[in-house]
């Protein structure tokens, strides 16, 4: 019972802090670029403002357009609930393994792209087609990276994998380097960050995610944006906890949990800084180079799998 309570509280925390994470990255980026920048809590204000505003629906919008924000948001929350944040003792982890996790994310993406096409504007359709193109290339790489980790732990369950990696003495897994690099590349592509997509612009030639939600307004838009921030946090959590499982609590004891919470916050902070630095240093690449970028991610994941087989097992 305690476990379930803990899982729910943990999920709610993540949902609540996700906008902060997104705002933090933006704030750090602005500071790095010598700009004033909005404070890290600005996304909360935006969400609040949007939720108060009236929803404007296009005449051609069907029910898909209206339910999509709710579906995307709730599916993302379910996905978040599966990922261990502070402790691996998560009863919700039994619900779904990495494959289902990827499935949740695809479900959200499916509704997102449907919504993009629903109204029938050219931008929405364009955004959806780009989103689907990129994710079709990113998903194999993502799964391959996950499988490498899963082979290490002999389980596809995220909690078990993290528990396996954090147990015992320090072991250097060569495969971990490759799969984490692949994972990071995929995560950047999937969350629509530079160099694949730029969340800060609405430049029609390059936008992907923003193009799909161009027709949304009011609370629908708020949910869509919140879901995007959640997705960023979800991937960040996966990356920090899988690559550096240091500090993740293996039990539900208060001391361990506190340590876990502190360590996970620190790791997320560092990751946000890393992301900000990368986004400052990199320019967005042409859309046509995205397949090459994702090809590299796939090769890395594949190398991870191969170095696991060649170097780590017999």
């Amino acid at each position: 019972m305690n476990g379930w309570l803990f899982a729910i509280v943990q999920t709610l925390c993540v949902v609540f802090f996700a906008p902060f994470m997104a705002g933090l990255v933006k704030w750090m980026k602005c500071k790095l670029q010598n700009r004033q920048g909005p404070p890290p809590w600005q996304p909360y204000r935006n969400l609040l403002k949007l939720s108060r505003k009236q929803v404007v629906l296009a005449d051609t919008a069907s029910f898909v357009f209206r339910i999509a924000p709710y579906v995307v948001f709730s599916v993302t929350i379910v996905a978040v609930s599966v990922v261990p944040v502070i402790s691996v003792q998560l009863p919700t982890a039994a619900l779904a393994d990495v494959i289902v996790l990827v499935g949740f994310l695809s479900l959200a993406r499916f509704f997102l792209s449907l919504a993009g096409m629903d109204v029938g504007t050219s931008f929405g359709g364009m955004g959806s087609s780009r989103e689907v193109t990129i994710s079709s290339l990113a998903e194999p790489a993502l799964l391959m990276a996950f499988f490498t980790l899963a082979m290490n732990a002999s389980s596809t369950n995220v909690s078990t994998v993290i528990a396996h990696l954090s147990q015992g003495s320090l072991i250097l897994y060569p495969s971990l380097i490759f799969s984490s690099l692949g994972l990071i590349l995929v995560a950047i592509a999937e969350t629509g960050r530079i160099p694949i997509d730029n969340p800060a612009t609405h430049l029609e030639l390059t936008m992907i995610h923003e193009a799909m939600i161009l027709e949304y307004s009011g609370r629908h838009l708020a949910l869509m944006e919140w879901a995007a921030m959640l997705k960023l946090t979800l991937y960040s959590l996966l990356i920090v906890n899988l690559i550096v499982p240091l500090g993740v609590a293996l039990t539900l004891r208060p001391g361990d949990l506190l340590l876990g919470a502190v360590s996970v916050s620190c790791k997320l902070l560092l990751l946000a800084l890393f992301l900000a630095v990368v986004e400052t240093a990199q320019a967005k690449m042409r859309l046509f180079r995205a397949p090459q970028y994702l090809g590299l991610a796939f090769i890395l994941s594949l190398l991870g799998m191969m170095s696991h087989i060649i170097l780590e097992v017999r």
Partner: protein
Amino acid sequence: MLIATLSLPEQVVLMLAALILLSSFLMLAQVRLDSMINTFALQGLLLFFATLIMALISGKYQLLISAALTLFLKVFFIPNKLRGLVVRLDINREIESITNPSLIMLFAASLVLFSYYVALPIRALSLLATRNTIAISLAVVLIGMLMIISRRKAVTQVVGFMSMENGLFFAAVVATCGMPMVVELGIAFDVLVAAILFGVFFFHIRTEIGSLDTDRLNHLTEVEK
């Protein structure tokens, strides 16, 4: 053999093996000449560390000499010479287009699988914990070869050639803790001379052909034109 049963230095060697393979892939994907030379130097550095650790694990201190040679040749001398040449030939900003990069990368990945398959009988024999790295070093050799085949710039081909050499050296270090000293010295000398000769050749090619694209070296054919 599970990796967990190895000691920490051995794990580090395996990690370095994986990184050397990664650097080969990076070189294969790299289009800018200067970054490619830097990646090559990085590979040399990884090789140096691997040799150093192997020397300490195995207690064969003659490997330290090989390590020093590697540091001198692969990290400083050859990359610096290449950089100097590239600057003097004024091609340091040139970008080389790769035809079908994804295909080449996939091909390189399949070469890794192939090497694994080829090296299977060796794995069964060795007593060293690092035996599995033979497959990796063979893969580095083959990827170097792929680089020579798939690229058109003379400098890139030389980098590919030298990275093949790295793979061979790595194989010697991890499989057998280095070759006898006289052979090691001979190989190092050959590599040194080859590096100098390549430099001479760049100027000849440049003078005669007017470019360093080996595509333009196409006069000699089987039939009369």
